[in-house]
């Protein structure tokens, strides 16, 4: 009986302590807010929060990892909700920057305007969406953009390879595509399918590994995703040339791998850069290192002028 009483007492004390701690946390964050508005330099504690594309995330992860090692007081956190999910949080004012694998949509821009959020677009790298098929697929080597469109556009029927080219096997094609929240999906549907519906029986997944595994184990599978995922799984997959051009570092960088090479962006909230010196610092670091980090994780850096332009834009925000 006594022990039970102790237990009850312990929980009560525990919760009281916790409530106390809660109050303390509150005070702390308020004081750090005050520090931010006082334009503290990078030595002061500060929070920076970002979210967005899973394609851009590996670049930011590398940058945050390096930046945190040298600036332990700046707490940068980055979520991976997909380009659309990231913009939703950006519009809500929850994040200081948003990663995107496509430009901001008109409707998103309108909502940002409505919310009074001014932002600046920074181009940080290039990606080449890679079209992949199964290793055992010995008929598809090269596709034209029109064929690609024909394969991926919904026409109400179950498509066979022979529908595209009579010489190809009469077997049903299975499709693997990134999910609707991903910028890769948006880019593919808008720029390749020109806004037409993607095949309805495609397997959609926000997890690119699901797509890799799907195509890997399905002889009639076809899928598309960012270049980095292809690069990491090169031995299990066969990449398809588009208009005779294979996606490689060189073809993506030189722009010959069209129309599937696309820029990757970071959208920065102007107000955060203006009010938070650490944010300016972090973004500067990001732009200066994005090219190198992009190459390290399997993307391609943009021409140096782009980074110069980004830096100038950032200076103007300060």
């Amino acid at each position, binding site marked *: *009986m006594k*022990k*039970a*009483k102790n*237990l*009850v007492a312990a*929980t009560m004390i*525990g*919760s009281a302590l*916790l409530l106390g*701690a*809660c109050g*303390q*946390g*509150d005070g*702390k*964050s308020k004081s750090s807010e005050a520090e931010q508005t006082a334009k503290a330099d990078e030595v002061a*504690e500060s*929070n920076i*929060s*970002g*979210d967005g594309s*899973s394609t851009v*995330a*590996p670049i*930011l*992860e*590398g940058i*945050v*990892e390096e930046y*945190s*090692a040298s600036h*332990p007081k700046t*707490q*940068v*956190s*980055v*979520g*991976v*909700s997909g380009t659309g*999910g990231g913009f939703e*949080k950006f519009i*809500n004012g*929850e994040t200081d920057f948003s990663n995107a694998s496509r430009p901001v949509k008109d409707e998103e821009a309108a909502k940002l305007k409505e919310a009074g959020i001014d932002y600046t677009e920074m181009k940080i790298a290039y990606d080449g969406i890679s079209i992949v098929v199964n290793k055992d697929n010995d008929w598809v080597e090269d596709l034209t953009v029109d064929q690609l469109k024909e394969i991926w556009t919904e026409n109400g029927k179950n498509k066979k390879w022979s529908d595209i080219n009579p010489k190809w096997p009469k077997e049903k094609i299975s499709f693997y595509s990134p999910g609707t929240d991903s910028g890769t999906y948006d880019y593919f549907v808008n720029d390749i399918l020109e806004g037409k519906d993607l095949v309805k029986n495609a397997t959609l997944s926000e*997890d*690119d*590994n699901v797509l*890799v595994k799907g195509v890997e184990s399905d002889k009639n599978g076809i899928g598309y995703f960012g270049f*980095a*995922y292809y*690069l*990491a*799984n090169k031995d299990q997959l066969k990449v398809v040339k588009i208009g005779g051009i294979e996606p490689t570092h060189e073809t993506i960088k030189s722009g010959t791998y069209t129309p599937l090479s696309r820029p990757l962006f970071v959208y920065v909230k102007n107000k955060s850069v203006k009010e938070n010196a650490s944010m300016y610092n972090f973004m500067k670091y990001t732009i200066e290192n994005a090219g190198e980090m992009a190459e*390290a*994780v*399997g993307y391609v850096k943009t021409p140096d002028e782009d980074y110069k332009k980004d830096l100038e834009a950032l200076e103007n925000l300060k």
Partner: protein
Amino acid sequence: MNLINQKEILHRIQSRVNLNRFVKGIFLVATLLVLAVLALLLFRLISQGAGHLSLDFLGNYSSRFAAKAGIKAALVGSILLMLVVAPVTLIIGVATAIYLEEYAPKTKLTNLIVINISNLAGVPSIIFGLLGLTVFVRGLMLGKSVLAAGLTMSLLVLPVIIVSSQEAIRGVPSDLREASYGMGAAKWKTILHVVLPAAIPGIATGCILALSRAVGETAPLVILGIPVIVYFLPTGLLSEFTALPMQIFDWAKRPQPEFQTVAAAGIVVLMVFLLLLNSLAVYIRYKYQKRY
């Protein structure tokens, strides 16, 4: 005179014995099947993840290099999350159960409330995530903080705790209450000194199981937008953070096959965390069980 018809018994006994054996066999196979799946799961995880498990793994932040990736931020985040969930759910959950069982008049309304609480226990966790996003993250402006996530998780597991505490309180023999009243104790005294101590094993089990669920849930965290690229430890309850399931989810999604090993190691850590919580439940149960 033969009181027992031996012949008749012998005639029918064989089929009964056979039925007995058959049923026993079915139950044995069912148990073995479950054990085999569990053993397979454990074996896969440990054989995959063991190579990456080390003190460095516990003490490092995640990294873009699989070899350097550690689970520090997520582990501390999860522990802090539990420090919010445990007191909130324990106090509100047990208080609700006491009210419903001991004080509330047994009307249709009470019944309706009790049934709805049980139903809430079956609501998919993603719905609680949406609720948490609207109410805590955006409504109360708590942001993607430990507190917001903790309160969301509390809502998720509260029904479980309430229902199990109710069961435990209901299971206390009414003789004990009557004896206490007979000694002149008031209702609150009776609840505090007689009913609650007797119900502790049941309540504790329910609480720990609920907490285990809260530790492992991923969907609400994904909806709340809990970040995964986090290279700092949470400084307070309003700090941003990441949690074990989010970190594991992120690793499992990486393109490099080496990160699958890291994810497996992360799952092992999560499982050890769960086992520790569960063994605490077993301990409390064992300790208080034999009192009545």
